[in-house]
């Protein structure tokens, strides 16, 4: 498993549309993808829009993204890049 701490940079946070885009990308990978706010213990399924929305990830939130599986390196690279470039 690989984990990285990232900051949500989208000015409007991870609302429905960016959350949907993130999940769509995450679903392309075989690895389990989870995301967790640093101030919360609960890990959320990164492939489920509903789960991500319950996290209410605002702009500036620090999150821990974890990818676990055969394609975890590629998954982390793709999703990390997506989170840092989403502007919606």
């Amino acid at each position, binding site marked *: 498993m690989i984990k990285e701490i990232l900051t949500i940079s989208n*000015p*409007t*946070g*991870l*609302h*429905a*549309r960016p959350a*949907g*885009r993130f999940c769509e990308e995450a679903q392309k990978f075989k690895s389990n993808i989870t995301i967790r706010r640093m101030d919360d213990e609960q890990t959320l399924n990164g492939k489920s*829009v*509903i*789960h991500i*929305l*319950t*996290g*209410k*990830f*605002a*702009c500036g939130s620090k999150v821990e993204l974890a990818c676990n599986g055969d394609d975890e390196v590629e998954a982390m690279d793709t999703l990390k890049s997506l989170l840092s470039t989403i502007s919606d």
Partner: protein
Amino acid sequence: MQNIIDINSIRFGYAATDWREAVNESGKLLVAAGKVEPQYIDAMIEMVEQHGAYMIVAPGVAMPHARAEQGVKETGISFLSLQEPITFPLKEQNPVSLLIGVAAIDSSQHLDAFGRIAALIANETEVKELITCTDVMKIFTLLNT
């Protein structure tokens, strides 16, 4: 804390013939509660036309919305269950029976509203109960808690 859903924003068993009718009614319920201007309804429909039905966030549930500057007066949501499911363009495999319209005055309240609803519809059993519910006070209390 102000109620996020108004009694006038709840409707059950609406007979929509297509997604536009369903989103239109969802928006009208927000207008009825004084949360949005009428033009917000067109903006909700345009959002689907331009960006697709990304707001089908759980099986059977869509959360149509538009941007704050497109006519939001106050943050609020509407609850509309359908008599028969409808489908959105390119999402024909995901029929929708429940529309929760969202109006948010800023991105923080937008995230908060979506987060609250998401927590309620995170499992299929709860979604089924919401879709078949005909008790206005139950929905009013549940969504305002």
